[in-house]
């Protein structure tokens, strides 16, 4: 994977309800990278909504890198419109969004193929089919040429088979497209499996509890086998949360 340039998303003195008080961090979102925030309260979700232009009643400064035109937010419950089929879901947001994107059928079909929905263009999704609906949400984010896609705890309700299929899809997409992913999760194993950078977060703190670069961690633990390395990083994360009075970590 080629790292073309760094993308630093700066957040300065963010104040938002009781969730953030003078929150100040720099999120390093390298191009084509997958990054996770592990968080056991609502703060990461709130941060995602602020970055994804969902919430606007906050105080503070968000400094987007030049490369970011838009950050697309995918919420916890899948967000495709159940009254539209796959293709119309994508067309609808293109047609109605304030963005000036061209409604291009060829591009839409390409992205539908990319997210694994080829042959399902005219299907209406079942509300319970979380994986299918997530793929539509992902397709809608990709059609916007978004450089940053924010996934807010979308995998928590999925079965393992669906979840790992989607993890592989996300990994492939992050390599093929100039897009970074920032994922909010409560599952440490998911974060380690997917990410290059892991940020640990807790409500009320003015910065992240810790940021962990997994490449560096693997280098430090290169004498260990893969299973042990993962176990040690997991323990490290649990210890950090334990030190910060969070004992319900899993």
């Amino acid at each position, binding site marked *: 994977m080629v790292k073309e340039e760094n993308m630093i998303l700066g957040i300065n003195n963010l104040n938002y309800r009781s969730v953030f008080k003078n929150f100040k961090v720099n999120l390093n979102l390298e191009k084509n990278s997958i990054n996770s925030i592990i968080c056991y309260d609502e703060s990461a979700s709130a941060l995602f*909504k602020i970055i*994804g*232009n*969902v919430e606007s009643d906050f105080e503070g400064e968000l400094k987007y890198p030049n490369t970011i035109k*838009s*950050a*697309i*937010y*995918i*919420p*916890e*419950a*899948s*967000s495709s*419109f*159940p*009254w539209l089929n796959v293709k119309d879901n994508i067309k609808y*947001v293109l047609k*109605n*969004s*304030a*963005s000036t994107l061209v409604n291009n059928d060829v591009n839409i079909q390409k992205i539908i193929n990319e997210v694994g929905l080829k042959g399902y263009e005219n299907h*209406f999704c079942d*509300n319970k089919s979380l994986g299918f609906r997530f793929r539509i*949400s992902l397709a*809608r*984010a990709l059609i*916007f040429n978004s450089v940053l896609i*924010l996934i807010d705890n979308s995998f928590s309700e999925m079965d393992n088979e669906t979840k790992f299929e989607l993890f592989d899809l996300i990994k492939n997409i992050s390599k093929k497209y100039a897009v970074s992913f920032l994922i909010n999760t409560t599952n440490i194993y998911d974060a380690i499996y997917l990410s290059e950078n892991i940020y640990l977060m807790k409500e009320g703190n003015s910065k992240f509890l810790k940021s962990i670069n997994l490449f560096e961690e693997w280098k430090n633990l290169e004498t260990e086998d893969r299973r042990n390395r993962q176990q040690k990083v997991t323990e490290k994360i649990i210890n950090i949360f334990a030190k910060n009075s969070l004992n319900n970590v899993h």
Partner: protein
Amino acid sequence: MSSDKIFLKNPFKILISFLIIWIVLFQFVFVWSNILPKPIILWESINDILQENQLVNNFLISVGSITFGIIVSLILTYFLRYFLLTKNLFVDLISAFYKLKFLLPTLIFIIFLVFWIPNSFYTEYILLAFFSFLYISKDIINKRNTILNDLENSARSLGLTSKKILANVKFKQIIPSLENSFLLLHIKLWGVLLVFEYVQNTFGLGSVLHSSMILKDLYVLFFTSVLISLTIIIFHFLIKVLFNQFVHWE
């Protein structure tokens, strides 16, 4: 009243059971009773009942009023959906009106309406349209704050304007939950209609009931009541079919 009430679950079976019990009891057991009419005599006099009471015309007027009321309220609700989903004077007015507990003021209003416009054919059409619009609007207003925000958040992140989100996303999210409202509404509409026609005593099935009470005609009273029950059941069935057909996403 909720949808799990027995009548809403299995109305047709209940009516058929009632008719079978009636035939058995009043044809073979209580032969000399005047509580309900005898089935054979009623069967033989159906033609007279239909002609003497102009039952077909009156039936069409009543069914027309109910259908008109529901369709007009649907059209009004659709065009005013944005206003119903935002905070404004119009919504406050509807909420305040509904807090009067609706049914009793409506009945009193009906008496005055008949006094002011005693013989108008169109009054009941307007009354039912107004009643059903208020009922559906109130339900939409109540439900706007109870639905999940995920679709709204996602749409906002994809750049849809607030107006489009409310009118095209939130409104569509609410529609499936309106099925029960429509099922209850049409029963309430029948109540309001029959009271209005009974008091007005000019057109409709309510006026037929009025005449039968004045003339103490048990056969007309019974036949009209069964006809009304059957029509309510058919409406109930039609509403369910329409929702299954067109509101397929839940």
